[in-house]
């Protein structure tokens, strides 16, 4: 598959207009800190929710960075951080076998059961 993108968009300046050479260099990172995923509980009673990631040298710093970066506007009352490499994610390739089988189990839902009006609030 090939195409050329010619149009320039705000936030996307094409490479042929940059006026610099674009010879790719192999990049080796020197002192990059590991990546951490951040989860915030926005208020008591709610689950922690994934909000993004950040870099930090260790867990203590990751926690503080999460506080400084992701809760500047009182977004949270509790934080979780976990180094990204420890997250195991399901593969989209498995989606059919993982999630499709739940599709036809309508008896798991309350609306499946017809009850007389007198008790229908059950």
């Amino acid at each position, binding site marked *: 598959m090939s195409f050329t993108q010619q149009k*320039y968009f*705000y936030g996307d*300046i094409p490479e042929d207009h940059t*006026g610099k050479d674009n010879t790719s260099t192999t990049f080796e990172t020197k*002192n990059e800190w590991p990546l951490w995923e951040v989860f915030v509980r926005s208020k008591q009673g709610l689950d922690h929710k994934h*909000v*993004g990631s950040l870099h930090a*040298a260790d867990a203590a710093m990751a926690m503080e960075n999460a506080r400084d970066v992701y809760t500047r506007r009182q977004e949270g009352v509790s934080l979780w951080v976990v180094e990204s490499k420890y997250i195991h994610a399901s593969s989209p390739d498995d989606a059919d076998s993982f999630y499709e089988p739940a599709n036809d189990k309508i008896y798991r839902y309350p609306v499946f059961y017809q009850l007389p009006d007198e008790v229908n609030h059950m």
Partner: protein
Amino acid sequence: MLEQDLEKIFQNKIDNEIKIEPKDWMPDAYRKTNIRQISQHAHSEVVGMLPEGNWISRAPSLKRKAILIAKVQDEGGHGLYLYSSAETLGIGRDEMINDLHIGKAKYSSIFNYPSLSWADMGAIGWLVDGAAILNQVMLCRTSYGPYARAMVRICKEESFHQRQGFESLLVLSRGTDEQKAMCQDAINRWWWPSLMMFGPKDSESTNSDQSMKWKIKRKTNDELRQQFIDMIAEQIKVLGMTLPDDKLKWNEKTNHYDFGEINWDEFWNVVKGNGPCNKQRLVAKNKAHDEGEWVRAAAKVYAAKKLNRQKEKAA
């Protein structure tokens, strides 16, 4: 599965407004375009800290100082959210930053203009952030999930940026003669560059537009620019100032404002590195990064030491 089938499924999702997520199959070019666009967007945020940051020490009141610090800091945060979302596409932040520092990656040219007076802080908030917000609101619906989510977060935070800019100009516009002149001068200098932020005219594009098809972008440059002009042309009346364009005029037929020709030579020159501040901006970012190298190294070494000690203790 064949690549063309995968591509069909991919395009189907996009047509049906289903977001693309990091582990989903995507065409290489989609990945690359997103990396380029998101990282340029991130670079724009962090380079954008510089022209405003240089007025923090000179802000004329404690209230304005607090607002400005919070705003410039927000831009750092936005850069961070964007780098994070680009990292889900398999590129490290260090690599993106390196591309910026060696001049390979680009950022919005607007930040290569100097901020010369206090009124520039207002003009940047009102015009530059105003232009950016139109683009960002559109990007909240972009097809790549992590990018869209970052934009939602950013838009929420950005909403105060344009308002504070306008409010700050409003005070100047009602102030002393010197303040009024300062206000008009800032608008004169930032008006055309902020129109350039939307990129070249649609008519310059001859090819089919892949970014629109992939719903990375959802409005054309000209559509966004017109929307911006229509908005600002009304708002400036409240300030009692003028926009530096004698062709600017309401058009009954189109229901839009007509406007004069943008200086595209200037635009491409700034993109190519010949803007008034291109060099200073890159020097400043390189200097900060280079001088931070030992800090990052020390933190990494200390983290490893601490971990080892914990292991020894446990053993």
